[in-house]
């Protein structure tokens, strides 16, 4: 079944949990025992409505404080698709969580409270969606019931958002505007009778209509090798298969390929998936490839078409979102993990911190947690990459702290 991954970000008050609860409820994904648990919990807290946030906020600390502090994953499905929502908090101190949620999502829902309009948080959500190049953005203008379902209010917010969109550097992004009332369900799954002036799709209709080809960006084929499969059995005595996940585009048997970093050339002789052979594999598949010649290929290597070589460099210019409480300062060493490859690297310079509200960037010499900045990095060995704008999978990396092993930051190569 087709899987669509959605990122949502927002604070308690803008009705995000109510929207998610609605989507679950209207697609009949909430089971009776879960609804009962929500009813019980809502009653205990003295609420006179069903608090759907109790279904999504999973940790004790979150339920106590009534906030979402981490990425939660929520699942629902229709006859057509399986949906996965990566739900994250919206405040500035959770920028890293929003970036994490957006990194695996094809669609993003930005919620706006119709009474408040476009606010600082809206800027931040949109900025992150641009930076990460989330192809589809749904601007859900919520709480329309509290502004008398006013078309003017909707038009004003839409115009404000379009002004913001004009500043975006990601022109291929599709932005759709939907006026909703998550509380009553208007335009979430069903159409709202109260807004006859809105003739577009409901949120669910919009999601259902998206084709996965609409939301993935196609790029040049990249095959990072995860592991080499050598059964060493009688039957498969000479078998040597390169296992990995294919990104960007398809590969075919017969394609002339180059292995990086050795730059050895060969041809794809076989494409396997489990016990079957195929003549072609699509992007996104986890396959095993055999090459014509017996050459040395190991984990961390990358197989590409010979006429589509990536950039091979030791110095990279990047945008980094910092995620660790220990600040990022020049001169420190980190491990860069890029696809299946790990290379020791040194932070060369931090040039600036970028404001997530589109007010520009200012000079800086360090990055604190949740800050996004321009960083140049020197690698101990050449990296084979594409600009993130050209090829998402081959332009992103993480920085691993060599003393704590934690994932300290994420970078996007320019």
């Amino acid at each position, binding site marked *: 079944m087709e899987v669509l991954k959605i990122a949502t970000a927002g604070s308690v008050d803008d009705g995000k949990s109510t929207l998610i609860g609605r989507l679950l409820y209207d697609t009949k994904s909430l089971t009776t025992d879960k609804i009962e648990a929500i009813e019980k919990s809502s009653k205990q807290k003295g609420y006179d409505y069903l608090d759907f946030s109790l279904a999504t906020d999973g940790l004790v600390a979150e339920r106590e404080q009534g906030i979402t502090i981490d990425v*939660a994953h929520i699942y629902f499905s229709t006859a057509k698709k399986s949906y996965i929502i990566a739900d994250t908090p919206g405040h500035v101190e959770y920028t890293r969580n929003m970036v994490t949620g957006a990194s695996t999502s094809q669609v993003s829902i930005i919620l706006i409270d119709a009474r408040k309009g476009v606010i600082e948080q809206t800027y931040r959500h949109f900025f992150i969606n641009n930076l990460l190049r989330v192809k589809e953005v749904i601007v859900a203008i919520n709480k329309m019931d509290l502004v008398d379902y006013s078309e003017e209010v909707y038009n004003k917010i839409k115009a404000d958002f379009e002004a913001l969109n004009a500043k975006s550097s990601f022109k291929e992004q599709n932005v759709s505007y939907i006026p909703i009332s998550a509380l009553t369900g208007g335009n979430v799954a069903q159409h709202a009778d109260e807004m006859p002036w809105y003739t577009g799709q409901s949120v669910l209709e919009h999601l259902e209509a998206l084709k996965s080809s609409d939301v993935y960006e196609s790029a040049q084929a990249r095959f990072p090798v995860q592991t080499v499969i050598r*059964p060493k059995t009688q039957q498969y005595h000479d078998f040597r298969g390169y296992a990995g996940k294919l990104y960007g585009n398809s590969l075919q048997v017969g394609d002339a390929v180059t292995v990086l970093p050795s730059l050895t050339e060969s041809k794809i002789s076989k494409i396997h998936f489990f016990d079957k052979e195929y003549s*072609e594999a699509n992007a996104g598949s986890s396959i095993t490839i055999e090459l014509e010649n017996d050459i040395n290929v190991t984990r961390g290597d990358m197989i590409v078409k010979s006429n589509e070589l990536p950039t091979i460099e030791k110095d990279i210019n990047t945008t980094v979102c910092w*995620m660790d409480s220990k600040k990022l300062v020049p001169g420190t060493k980190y491990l860069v993990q890029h696809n*299946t490859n790990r290379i020791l690297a040194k932070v060369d310079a931090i040039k600036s911190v970028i404001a997530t509200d589109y007010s520009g960037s200012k000079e800086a010499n360090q990055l604190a947690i949740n800050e996004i900045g321009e960083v140049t990095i020197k690698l101990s060995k050449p990296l084979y990459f594409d600009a993130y704008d050209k090829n998402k999978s081959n332009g992103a990396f*993480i920085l691993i702290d060599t003393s704590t092993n934690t994932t300290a930051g994420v970078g996007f190569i320019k």
Partner: protein
Amino acid sequence: MNSVFKSNALEAEAIYIFREVVSQFEKPVLLFSGGKDSITLVRLAQKAFFPAKIPFPLLHVDTGHNFPETIAFRDKLVEELGLELIVRNVQDAIDSGKVVEETGKYSSRNSLQTTTLLDAIEEFKFDACIGGARRDEEKARAKERIFSVRDDFGQWDEKNQRPELFDILNGKIEIGQNVRVFPISNWTELDVWSYIEQEHIEIPSIYFSHKRKVFLRDGLIWSHSPFVYQEEDEQIEERIVRFRTVGDMSCTAAVESYASTIAEVVGEIRQSTISERGARIDDKRSEAAMEKRKQQGYF
């Protein structure tokens, strides 16, 4: 031959995760309970490494209170695929006095498994334990990472988890730490059943409709067995039931069902209004039951 391989996104993701595990860790192990999720994991692992054999053993933490059908199934699967199986028994930890058996009406060995699991991790120096937990099962699991780091006491620090971005998995750990790996994190119950149907995967008979001696308590159908505490006034009756989830007998309730084929089971789940873990007695203890167990090292 002119055939294009179109992948299934969830299957491709799971296979990718398995391959990262063998590349990033020295001694992985697959935690095998004999339930449908761990059986699905075995099929995915087979696909990830074919034509090579699955390059890690299976570990079964046996409470001693398992359904006999599950154990028979486990042994058959291991035999057929030529896998290495390690079994460690909760009974041994009870006999040595490391843990004390629960008593009373709701007693179960479910939470005692943690000690046996942590001991086995230490004994074999496992650095990655692959499990079949899914985020849709339970709200604390919805927060779990795909590579979830545990300290040398097996504890989960839920507030301080590593961010996971894109497909990039960071499995770097200190000696003594281990990582719990969840390749089917993003699958739902229905995804698992649909996959079992599509792949014709064999599963234990208790997942299908059968006649069983049961008794009713708190609106749930409990198995009648020497391992399950039963009050005198709780009357044994025979019902046509099946199990949606398989833990041991003391923590898994049955559901009434006539579904006797995978297709009927899939149909039933599509229609169902009760969640899978609604029949898990171990989760009913409190709203944070799972989170607490996970902090202590439960899988």
